[in-house]
């Protein structure tokens, strides 16, 4: 009987606990939701877009992609000078302060880059600056970068590296990777107040922010909540628990807008979708995909326009190149495959598969589009066994060379240059597992375009490479995505041309 009483008492106790009030305009607190969790504050240790967004709020870097023309603008740098192909001089903004109040000088910049280059554990960013030969201090507010060889995507990489305070990550040989993981002394427009990994990040405006291309935020307090379920996010938005969510599909977004409880914007995104085909026969020689006519048939079989328009919506469009048409170097005058099932069937027949064949198609996101494609391919005789699963499963199968075709997407992380997609996807096949073309020429052209600063030469190399990819149908380029954002009526959020959400520009209505 006593147990019984205790339980009843517990329940009574629970029901009297105070119900937390929602944060909102009255206390100048903006709440946004991410569906993927943030486990580490330090941008250098995360790969997801969410880390990039957070990084732009709490950190700053020498350069930044400004939203008007999608070009790289100096941020912590005040100006720069390209001395020659392999030397870059950067002058730093003066009077910029870290969140702890200390001033940023060239020592911090040199320290940061030396940390990134010599830290064996942080392979991702070490690789990012593989072009860097050395960095030297040329004055209290100036540094010089010496490059190994000419490198085109330099400013993008300078944007990726967030400047850390001198000494904060430890010393060479004794780097502390977790130094900034749970609390962070950054330079960005917001400061971290508290952080609960995988749950929420509480930020407060950095009143000493220098402005720069990002500008000073209008809203004082910002809470980022991790809510894995999109349905739950919508409910929170409707009930006032959050103000902003993104990656919202058009059906949901439009329906929500109709209720009048939120605004929906669907704008362009740098993300594209594509099928990677095992033309090189890595998954077994002589498989159907190694035949050019089969790959071309697949290009003809998928009704990209219909899927882009009906499933994705917004400004999503069919694409014919292995890059998003809006980014630098994405040459468009390549061989185009129209939607033509009859032609696809005859190509299959001429390749020796008049009755089609069975194919495992791997995918990990955008289940509706994957099913629509599978349906289209089925209509021309390629019987698809869809392997829709988790990314980890796909990665493992790809590494083990089991994959003949997979549906990939690439978001380019707010970087408007073909280099960002090609240096991952057209890597030397002996070093990575994404380039399944089996054609060394593709690697040579697409990565060669990064090795020069000459804009015209880069364009020519990308054009050659993209033409080759289209002609040989190494991929089935599918469509560009669109980015849907739901925002509460209380706030003003303007979507930018690259679909990258610049949260710090949000204002109250």
């Amino acid at each position: 009987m006593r147990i019984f009483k205790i339980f009843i008492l517990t329940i009574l106790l629970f029901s009297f606990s105070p119900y937390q009030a929602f944060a909102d305009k009255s206390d100048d607190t903006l709440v946004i939701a991410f569906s993927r969790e943030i486990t580490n504050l330090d941008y250098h240790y995360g790969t997801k877009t969410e880390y990039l967004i957070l990084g732009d709020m709490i950190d700053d870097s020498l350069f930044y992609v400004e939203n008007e023309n999608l070009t790289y603008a100096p941020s912590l740098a005040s100006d720069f000078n390209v001395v020659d192909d392999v030397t870059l001089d950067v002058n730093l903004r003066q009077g910029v302060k870290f969140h702890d109040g200390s001033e940023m000088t060239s020592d911090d910049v040199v320290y940061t880059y030396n940390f990134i280059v010599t830290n064996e554990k942080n392979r991702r960013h070490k690789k990012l600056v593989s072009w860097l030969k050395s960095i030297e201090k040329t004055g209290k507010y100036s540094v010089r970068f010496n490059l190994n060889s000419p490198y085109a995507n330099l400013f993008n990489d300078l944007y990726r590296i967030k400047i850390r305070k001198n000494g904060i990550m430890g010393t060479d040989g004794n780097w502390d990777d977790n130094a900034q993981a749970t609390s962070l002394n950054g330079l960005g427009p917001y400061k971290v107040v508290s952080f609960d990994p995988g749950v929420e990040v509480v930020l407060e405006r950095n009143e000493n922010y220098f402005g720069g291309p990002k500008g000073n935020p209008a809203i004082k307090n910002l809470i980022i909540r991790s809510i894995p379920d999109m349905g739950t996010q919508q409910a929170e938005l409707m009930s006032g628990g959050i103000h902003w969510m993104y990656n919202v599909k058009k059906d949901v977004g439009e329906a929500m807008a109709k209720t009048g409880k939120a605004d929906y914007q669907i704008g362009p995104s740098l993300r594209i979708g594509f099928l990677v085909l095992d033309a090189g026969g890595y998954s077994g020689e002589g498989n159907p995909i190694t035949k050019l006519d089969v790959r071309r048939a697949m290009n003809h079989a998928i009704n990209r326009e219909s899927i882009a328009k009906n499933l994705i919506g917004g400004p999503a469009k069919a694409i014919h190149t292995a890059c998003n048409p809006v980014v630098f170097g994405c040459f468009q005058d390549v061989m185009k495959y129209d939607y033509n099932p009859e032609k696809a069937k005859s190509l299959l027949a001429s390749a020796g598969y008049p009755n089609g064949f069975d194919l495992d198609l791997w995918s990990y996101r955008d289940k509706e589009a994957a099913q629509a494609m599978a349906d289209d391919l089925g209509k021309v005789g390629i019987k698809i066994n869809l392997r829709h699963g988790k990314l980890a499963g796909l990665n493992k199968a790809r590494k083990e060379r089991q994959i003949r075709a997979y549906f990939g997407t690439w978001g380019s992380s707010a970087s408007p240059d073909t280099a960002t997609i090609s240096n991952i996807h057209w890597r030397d096949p002996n070093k990575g597992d994404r380039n399944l073309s089996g054609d060394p020429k593709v690697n040579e052209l697409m990565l060669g375009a990064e090795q020069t600063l000459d804009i015209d030469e880069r364009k020519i190399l990308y054009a050659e490479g993209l033409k080759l990819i289209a002609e040989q149908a190494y991929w089935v380029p599918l469509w560009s995505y669109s980015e849907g954002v739901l925002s509460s009526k209380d706030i003003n959020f303007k979507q930018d041309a690259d679909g990258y959400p610049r949260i710090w520009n949000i204002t109250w209505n």
Partner: protein
Amino acid sequence: MLRFIAGRLIVVIAVAITLSFITFFLLNYAIDPAQAVAGEEALFEEIEQVRIQYGFDRPILERYFEWASGVMRGNFGESYYWNKSVYLLVLERAPETITLALMSVSVTIIIAIPLGILAALNPNSIIDRFALGIAVAAQAVPNFWLGLLMIILFALTFPIFPVSGDKTYFHFVLPAIVLGASSVPPVMRLMRTGLLDVVDSDYIRTARSNGFYGWNLTINHSMRNAVLPVVSVLAVQLGHKFGGSVITESVFAINGLGRLALESILGTDIPTVQILVFIFAFMFLIFNLFADILNAYLDPRLRK
């Protein structure tokens, strides 16, 4: 009794060790640990570097013993997905799961015990049928679906409870109902049959013939005898809740161990999943042991 408990404890430990080994083995074959650490954009050579650097190239048994001896010394390892020690991670997330587990068992008690008593007091009546209906329904409803319905109904259509999160106890009410519902059928049935058996037994008949009647009688005489088996089943159910809250926690965005487990599996974080499976199994075993002891106390024949 002590010998009985000691014997059972040895079984618990042995089972926990076996399970941890099975999990270790499965996880390390399902996921390439070096690839998981190196990240999805890593080059082949980097993956191989990691393999050597972290010692993933050594035989699996050797790695298992290293892991196991670490756990014995209280070193749960480092999570490479969450960038922190698994020990801290578990410590942070455990309170939410414990709260949810306790509250869901409270929900079970609040629904199942009165229903069971009422059903037993009025066998074959409308109340009895109703109770049975609840049990049948609770058994057949998928909990992720119930969770979504609850959100539509009680958080949006009638905004009584918050949609998600774990800030206050209020946030736990809906998930606790969802999680608690699945334990209602066994507990209610046991309560009902337990009471019916006692009511049928001789000493209650004697009590009745002596003039005791109704509620008073039921409470005073029957409950004492019927309630202990129910408590032992509740203990088993509580043990289940720790590992059983995976879906409920992710639907309601509660940052407990269940959601941690799900996200760690999707993030291929072997050290965390490994420890969590171990913890879930261990909790289950401990609560079962408690139930067994209770049963043995009730029925000395079981203490063999």
